[in-house]
């Protein structure tokens, strides 16, 4: 009687070890491209109907920095503003102009980005072919109607800087 009981217990023990299991594999990819806002832009108001970030107009150009650990894996996409995100009510059209260019480099070869950049609409795309840091400055201006003064109030626009894996 005792022997049978022990045998059945052993069988139960062995059958418990036959279960299958699935082990998850976790991974995390951190981008090797970092975008940092270096300088906040300020609109100058050289004319009643004009707002500009150009220093000659009393403005400050916003500057963004791209840090790339490995060359030729990312491209920078910078969009200069074509509308106000905050402004008084405007009854006329606003004409936007903008330009993105290299402000500072950590390697002289990055200075050539101005020659290789691709521009369309209000977007500038630069293939980041050199590892290191590149500073881009954005010059943007807005002209209200034709010879019209902008209404008084607070105006705000946004520059979008993205790092895209190629």
């Amino acid at each position, binding site marked *: 009687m005792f022997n049978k009981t022990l045998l059945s217990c052993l069988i139960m023990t062995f059958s418990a070890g036959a279960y299958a299991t699935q082990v998850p594999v976790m991974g995390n990819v951190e981008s090797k491209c970092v975008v940092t806002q270096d300088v906040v832009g300020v609109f100058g108001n050289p004319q009643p109907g004009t707002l500009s970030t150009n220093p000659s107009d009393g403005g400050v150009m916003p500057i963004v920095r791209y840090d790339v650990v490995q060359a030729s894996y990312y491209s920078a996409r910078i969009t200069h503003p074509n509308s106000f995100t905050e402004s008084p009510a405007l009854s006329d059209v606003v004409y936007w102009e903008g330009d993105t260019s290299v402000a500072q*480099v*950590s390697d002289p070869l990055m200075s*050539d980005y101005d020659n290789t950049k691709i521009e369309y609409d209000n977007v500038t795309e630069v293939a980041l072919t050199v590892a290191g840091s590149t500073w881009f400055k954005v010059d943007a201006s807005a002209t209200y109607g034709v010879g019209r003064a902008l209404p008084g109030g607070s105006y705000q626009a946004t520059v979008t800087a993205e790092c895209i894996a190629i």
Partner: protein
Amino acid sequence: MLLCSSHSYSNEVFGVTQNATSFGYQWVMTNILPQQAGLQVNAVIYNYSVDKVTEDDFLVHVQNENAQGEGYIFRETDDWSGIPGNTINKNVAVPNIDISYWGLGSIETEGKGTVYDAGVYYSYQFDPCFDPQSNPSCPGYESPVDLNFEDASIYDPLADDMIQNELDRKANLKQQKEDEERRERLKIAQEAEERSGLESLLGIEETQYEFSEEQIALHQQLMALRGLPVGYLNSLVGGSYEDTITLKDKELPNNRRGLRVGLAQELKHQQLINLQYAK
């Protein structure tokens, strides 16, 4: 059991220098880096702008000479050839190079172009307890000698074995010299005495010769024959004989020749004395 422990430790101090190019594109590092023992430079941060024609060749060297040898301890070259001018902003890590290696710093250019608005900064770190004696809280700090006389041990040089041995050695040398001189003097005295004894001995022989048996016999014969005068054996009465010489010239002039000789002798004497002290 309650165990108490206390220890002090030192934290690394990190810092960045002022702009080395404040007074030109060549700088002396002793004026830039803090003169702290054990200081190490871990990075060089620089920026400058380049004005050039895109097609031109242009090289910019940011460098530091090796103060411990030839060449450069740090030299970063930026090649702007065929590239439009721009502003460069660079952070170059260096493997914690000791302050003693950092020599003259400079920005040099090659080719056509201009560098302007330059800035060079050195990131450094150092251990404030590199010299443990710099601060009592540093590990390994040793208190200086306490000037409290109750605790202070007085150093007696005469108790020093080395000094005592040297003194003994000198004393022995002096003693040996004195012994030697004493022996020399005794020897001289002994020789003099022997000489004197010999003379005496010789004197006795002369006496014996003077008063030989034949002479004594002859003397006795003469005495017996009364051949000798009566006063032969009488002794003369002694006394003093006064000087009767008188000098006519009371004043004698100085003998110049004699004076010269005297002076010469004195000079010679002085030279001989000096010879004793000459090495």
